[in-house]
């Protein structure tokens, strides 16, 4: 082993050849370590295996785990600075590819792999990341069906969060106006891909909630590659959709099965065009529906009234109205008897009253001025006034004299006062 001399200067013997020549443990480990780090293959390689015993130390931030296959295992460590860049959370049982190097961990006398990168084996890292994010957000309740808000039946104002330059916006605009010519559209421009997109999209949703009177929000973009659509898989957008008080329709191009935004949205549309269709009703159809209700109201009420009037007609056709005597015959007899009885009572009463009256008349007759006149007295009147004293008249006054059987007109020729009681 020619290398030996170089590594352990000052020692000429081969290891084990001589009991007097020995190495310390540290020297051994150190020697092996140098062998390993001197090998270019072992210093940068990809290794495939299944993770087991994964531990992430909270304090240090370093991750320790074992990679294994059916027959063998090897210890691995990933330092905090590398762990930070992982897009997914490594778990036991996961098949991964790691890139790294080998060195000896002298304290335990074992070699281990220092991992620089890790990728899920077989599926893309992004895909795994999404899967994990989806599971986490789901567990946190962001996709709860109970939390979904209904889209109002009548929508007059639509908020749109998308790129003002995109075809998606033009599609949305066209379809919204086609279905509802009076619709108001409030656009909040946002980039829909790239590093700023998640925050801008989320901010757009929030702004529409805070500063507009939209009835519903459409958030989306046209189709694109998996990577292009990543903003719609971001936690920021999912949370903004979830927290929106206004109902949100997601409209992400249809090349992928779903985006996390779709799962969080109150309603998912496959395309921006479809989102616009879902957002507003077809006004002509809605109008026709109301017209139909009005017609049915009139018809149903008309029918009801006709029904009642027909019932009335049928009742009126009943025999009793044409020949009431048939039904009323007996009653009529009874009525006649009652009438006769009533009449008898009235006549009897009347006779009594008549007798009483004639007695009163005889009594009254005795007091009557007519009786006095019939005894030869007369009543002298001047106009309406009864003359009682001489001075009420003058010669020439015209007087009327009531006698028992008539009236005499007279003119005064003379008047004379007579002292009746002093005579």
């Amino acid at each position, binding site marked *: 082993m020619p290398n030996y001399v170089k590594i352990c200067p000052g020692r000429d013997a081969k290891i084990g050849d001589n009991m007097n020549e020995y190495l310390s443990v540290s020297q051994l480990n150190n020697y092996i370590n140098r062998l390993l780090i001197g090998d270019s293959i072992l210093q940068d390689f990809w290794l495939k295996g299944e993770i087991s015993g994964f531990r992430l130390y909270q304090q240090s931030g370093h991750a320790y785990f074992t990679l294994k296959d059916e027959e063998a295992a090897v210890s691995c460590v990933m330092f905090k600075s590398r762990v930070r860049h992982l897009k997914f959370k490594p778990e036991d049982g996961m098949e991964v590819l790691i890139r790294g190097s080998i060195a000896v961990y002298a304290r335990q006398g074992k070699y281990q792999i220092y991992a620089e990168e890790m990728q899920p084996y077989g599926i893309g890292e992004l895909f795994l990341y999404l899967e994990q994010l989806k599971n986490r957000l789901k567990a946190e309740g962001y996709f709860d069906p109970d939390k979904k808000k209904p889209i*109002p*039946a*009548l929508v*007059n*104002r639509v*908020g749109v969060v998308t790129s*003002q330059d995109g075809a998606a916006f033009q599609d949305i*605009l066209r379809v919204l*106006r086609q279905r*509802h*010519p*009076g*619709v*108001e*559209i*409030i*656009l*909040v*421009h946002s980039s829909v891909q790239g590093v700023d997109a998640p925050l801008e999209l989320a901010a757009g949703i929030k*702004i*529409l909630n*805070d*500063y*507009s009177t939209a009835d519903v929000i459409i958030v989306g973009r046209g189709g694109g590659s998996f990577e292009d659509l990543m903003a719609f898989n971001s936690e920021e957008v999912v949370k903004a959709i979830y927290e929106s008080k206004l109902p949100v329709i997601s409209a992400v191009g249809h090349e992928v099965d779903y985006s996390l935004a779709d799962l969080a949205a109150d309603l998912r549309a496959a395309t921006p065009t479809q989102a616009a269709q879902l957002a507003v009703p077809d*006004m002509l159809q*809605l*109008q026709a*529906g*109301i017209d139909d*209700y*009005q017609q*049915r*109201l009139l018809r*149903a*009420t008309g*029918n*009801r*009234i006709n*029904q*009642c009037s027909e019932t009335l007609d049928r009742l009126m056709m009943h025999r009793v109205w044409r020949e009431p005597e048939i039904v009323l015959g007996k009653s009529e007899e009874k009525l006649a008897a009652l009438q006769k009885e009533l009449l008898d009572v009235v006549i009897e009463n009347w006779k009594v009253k008549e007798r009483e009256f004639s007695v009163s008349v005889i009594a009254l007759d005795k007091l009557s001025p007519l009786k006095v006149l019939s005894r030869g007295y007369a009543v002298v009147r001047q106009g309406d006034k009864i003359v009682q004293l001489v001075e009420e008249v003058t010669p020439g006054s015209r007087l009327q004299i009531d006698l028992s059987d008539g009236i005499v007109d007279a003119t005064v020729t003379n008047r004379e006062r007579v002292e009746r009681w002093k005579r």
Partner: protein
Amino acid sequence: MEEMKFEDALKMLEDIVEKLESGSLELEQSIQLFEQGVKLSLYCQQQLKQAEGRVQRLVKNLNGEFKLLDL
């Protein structure tokens, strides 16, 4: 009725029409419902005509306030 949501009004209208069409109501009740139904249908129609058809953009100005600009 001003505060009523369109879909609630539409739903009530639908219920009234169905009740009337069942024909099992007293005449007086059907006429009351008819009147209510006509009011609801007029309200719905009026709601349909409320929007103005503008397209605007909500933007933040230099003071950090949000403004609606016509597009």
